[in-house]
């Protein structure tokens, strides 16, 4: 049921009673139909964060507490200073609901939206990353359809705009079968001067308001209200609420915007996304302390006869709003003409603090500029679900397969196997910055041309761990994603997150959200990682089956590497070198791939995070890096340590002779030991001559480091020092299994 229904003169809004009362009290009159529509959109969960805002306060103030953070949460993107006059802007967002019913355009316009968020910080978008969640692919044509077209949507849009997709993550799990997750992240690079030029504010009266880009059509009306409720059988009928992307126009908008900002005459910049013009105009004037008079007839529409309600609420893609100094109007318009971009000067700012929109002589909108952005928050109840105790108490059954069979099965499982099928479809090299490419590292590494600096970025979280313990799971996600950038030689600089959860009106769903936020906030405070932005996607629930997704707080970390020689990659390099493991392996199998693939079991105790130990391990690794002691590095996650070692063997077709007799704690079952997903472990390759020195440093940093084997030229993994006799695993066979799973399922 749509939130606003217009029947003749009558209008039905789905705002809460207190909201309606507050709005009428503020205006001292009945809002017009268009105004009702604007309030409805701006008070939607998607735009107002009315359920999540109280919890998001747990993240400390990044701008205040970290001197290199230039923009923190609440802005279109987080921005950090990376030195030498450059800054990075980045953000992550969800486009789950549209993608669940129209995967191709849903994913494509998700990319379009996140690019605009970065662009309106005044910088050039240089990289995309996409964490995705679907139902299992096997025997599931619906999941295959979603997966195929989401990937194609991302590829077609991202490739066309010339922004490389440098990383991502995919998990398959039943809970995402009808509510797939499509999160999209973008990184932008520019000078600090570029960023300072054009804030997302209209703070000067008398400036021109220009709408540039695509035309305003009837598509996407109420996209945000649609995204703020659960999917139902009727959702297919919501397809018109999904926007259609046009990556060519987006590419032209990128170039025209960057060139316009360079003129120095752009004083404010805002993209049109969720909430369309309503959102852009009210946020520009509201946060800038100004007002504006807008002439709606100037807006170029895709079809005649659109009414003011439709124009103000349209979420047509590929539009940007510019606030331009009067003396530079011609200069900016000249840029738009060069790129053959449509534009319209639609009004001017003033000092009234009121947003007025005229349609011919009719004043259709007359609202205080801040009225729309001041949605009240709603306190939500939280409740830990009853089923958790039983799930957490589940024990690892005795496997009927032998260890070798289990490893071969795991490496071919959907969540562990190679995602090459996905990243081959993404242009991950355009821009000539990609130094560590998809598949060669735990993170994507880009060079900053003109400096000796490199950035590293990774995204993800383990949804299964979060399901069993959202607090520890979110922390574990941070350990893993920070571990990804650290494994490539970077230091984590900042974090953004995208919280994907169920209906916040249900206490259990809200408890998951609340716990995950608390976990992220606690960890980031302790490890000194600024949270510079975030996005919340609620209502990821299917009313037909009455199931919510596994709450998934996706984490994105951006790190910095100072110098080409400090970049470290994943593949093992040279036979004879040592293989060391950093960190403890505990019997933490809850939510593991071992449980899920071998026993179809979801429960057990998931990994716990000890911040002090993590801190010590990271500092120890930085010390090894400083002394150039690490030749290859890979963090241990899904599937456990043998899977990690196999992945490191693949590229250079090497083998590993492993002896666990010193490292393996016999109080644990050997399957628990081998397939544990304890977080914060790294497998590193080092020169055996440096062994004593590394162990010395490990003692100094109070970190557990063990030599577990050496590299061999024969492509096999030999396992010794367990309770069973020697096991030999064939690297080529493992690689075949690793590579063929997704193509076999998708290429029919």
């Amino acid at each position, binding site marked *: 049921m749509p939130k606003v229904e217009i029947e003749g003169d009558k209008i039905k809004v789905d705002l809460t009673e207190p909201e309606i009362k507050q709005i009428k009290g503020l205006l001292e009159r009945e809002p017009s139909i268009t105004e009702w529509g604007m309030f409805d959109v701006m008070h939607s969960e998607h735009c107002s964060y009315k359920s999540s805002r109280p919890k998001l306060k747990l993240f400390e103030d990044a701008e205040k507490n970290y001197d290199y953070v230039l923009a923190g949460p609440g802005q279109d993107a987080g921005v950090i200073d990376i030195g030498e006059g450059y800054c990075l802007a980045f953000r992550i967002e969800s486009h789950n609901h549209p993608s669940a019913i129209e995967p191709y355009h849903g994913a494509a316009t998700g990319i379009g939206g996140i690019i605009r968020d970065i662009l309106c910080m005044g910088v050039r978008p240089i990289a995309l990353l996409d964490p995705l969640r679907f139902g299992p692919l096997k025997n599931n044509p619906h999941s295959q359809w979603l997966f195929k077209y989401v990937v194609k949507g991302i590829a077609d849009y991202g490739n*066309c705009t*010339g922004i490389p997709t440098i990383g991502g993550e995919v998990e398959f799990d039943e809970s995402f079968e009808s509510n797939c997750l499509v999160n999209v992240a973008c990184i932008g690079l520019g000078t600090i001067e570029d960023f300072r030029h054009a804030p997302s504010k209209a703070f000067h009266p008398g400036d021109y308001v220009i709408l540039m880009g695509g035309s305003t059509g009837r598509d996407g009306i109420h996209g945000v209200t649609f995204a703020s409720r659960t999917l139902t059988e009727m959702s297919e009928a919501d397809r018109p609420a999904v926007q259609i992307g046009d990556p*060519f*126009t987006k*590419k032209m908008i990128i170039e025209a915007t960057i060139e316009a900002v360079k003129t120095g005459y752009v004083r404010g910049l805002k993209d049109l996304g969720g909430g369309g013009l309503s959102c852009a105009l009210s946020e520009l004037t509201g946060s800038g302390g100004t007002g504006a008079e807008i002439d709606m007839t100037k807006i170029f529409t895709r079809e005649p006869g659109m009414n003011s309600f439709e124009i103000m609420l349209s979420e047509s893609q590929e539009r940007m709003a510019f606030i331009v100094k009067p003396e530079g109007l011609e200069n900016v318009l000249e840029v738009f003409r060069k790129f053959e971009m449509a534009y319209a000067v639609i009004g001017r700012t003033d000092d009234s603090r009121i947003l007025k929109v005229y349609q011919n002589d009719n004043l259709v909108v007359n609202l205080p500029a801040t009225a729309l952005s001041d949605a009240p928050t709603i306190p939500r109840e939280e409740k830990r679900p009853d089923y958790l105790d039983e799930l957490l108490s589940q024990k690892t059954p005795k496997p009927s397969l032998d260890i070798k069979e289990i490893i071969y099965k795991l490496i071919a499982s959907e969540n562990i196997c190679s995602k090459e099928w996905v990243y*081959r*479809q993404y242009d*991950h090299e*355009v821009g*000539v910055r990609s130094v560590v490419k998809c598949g060669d590292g735990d993170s994507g590494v880009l060079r900053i041309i003109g400096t000796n600096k490199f950035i590293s970025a990774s995204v993800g979280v383990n949804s299964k761990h979060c399901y069993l313990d959202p607090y520890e799971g979110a922390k574990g996600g941070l350990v893993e994603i920070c571990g990804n950038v650290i494994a490539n030689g970077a230091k984590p600089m900042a974090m953004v997150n995208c919280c994907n959860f169920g209906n916040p009106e249900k206490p259990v769903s809200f408890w998951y959200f609340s716990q995950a936020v608390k976990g992220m906030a606690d960890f980031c405070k302790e490890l000194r990682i600024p949270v510079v932005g975030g996005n919340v996607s609620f209502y990821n629930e299917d009313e037909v089956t009455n199931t919510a997704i596994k709450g998934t707080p996706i984490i994105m970390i951006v790190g910095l590497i100072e110098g080409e020689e400090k970049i470290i990659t994943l593949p093992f390099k040279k036979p004879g070198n040592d293989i060391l493991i950093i960190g403890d392996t505990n019997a933490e199998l809850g939510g593991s791939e071992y449980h899920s693939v071998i026993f179809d079991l979801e429960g057990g105790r998931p990994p716990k995070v000890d911040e002090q130990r993590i801190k010590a391990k990271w500092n120890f690794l930085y010390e090894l890096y400083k002394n150039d002691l690490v030749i290859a590095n890979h963090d241990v996650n899904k599937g456990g340590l043998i899977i990690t070692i196999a992945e490191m063997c693949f590229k250079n077709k090497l083998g590993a002779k492993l002896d666990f007799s010193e490292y393996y704690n016999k109080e644990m079952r050997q399957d628990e030991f081998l397939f544990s997903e304890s977080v914060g472990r790294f497998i590193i390759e080092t020169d055996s001559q440096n062994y004593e020195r590394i162990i010395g440093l490990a003692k100094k940093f109070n970190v557990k480091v063990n030599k577990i084997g050496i590299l061999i030229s024969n492509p096999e993994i030999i396992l010794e020092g367990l309770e069973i006799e020697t096991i030999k695993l064939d690297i080529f066979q493992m690689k075949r299994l690793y590579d063929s799973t997704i193509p076999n399922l998708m290429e029919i």
Partner: protein
Amino acid sequence: MSIKIAVIQFPGANCDLDAVHVLNSVINVEVNLIWHNHFKASHYDGVILPGGFTFGDYLRAGIIAAHSPALDEARKMLKDGKPIIGICNGFQILAEAEFLPGALLKNESLKFVCKWIKIKVENNKTAFTTKMNKGDILNIPVAHGEGRFFTDNLKELTENEQIVFRYSNENGDITSESNPNGSMENIAGVCNLEQNCLGLMPHPERASEAILSPYGTTHGKLFFESMVDFIKRRIS
């Protein structure tokens, strides 16, 4: 005399800045990024049509750009014997504008493909290949959705030595496994009869710096060094 090379910025081109970067910072020659409507042939010694998705490639890759006034200008350069290279979408444009023979069809897989592959040099006499040897194997990446070369004139192309590169394996064998898009006879790049115009699907500008190559190679540089060399010989 100084050399000046143009990189044409078509609407939707997205490898334009990459080509400018390589010519500027790796090859160290003067290069202008020039908007397609503003391009004048007489100002330049050579021209690069970069990769991307000109005009979105919504109709057919390269077809709209092939009707840009820039192509009329480029045609003058073609006649004057100046070097012209079309990379990826640039190749598609040059094929559509009939500077080069053949057509580029949708990849056999029907999917975009981005990966490092190998090409074998078949003709080292063109304006862009003189720094290579016949039979050399080059490491270079591809990134395209419509790169399957097709011609109904294969015999003539072969006889006229217009086939400049073929996809191959590391031993130089022309195999179907090494063909990323299903191109006829593994053809990766072709030239015109006069050999001053080259089109290829792989991206030399992405293979010109060791730091970007998984093999530490700089084979892409050879294209631009040959081009500069060709210009120098032409104007001296």
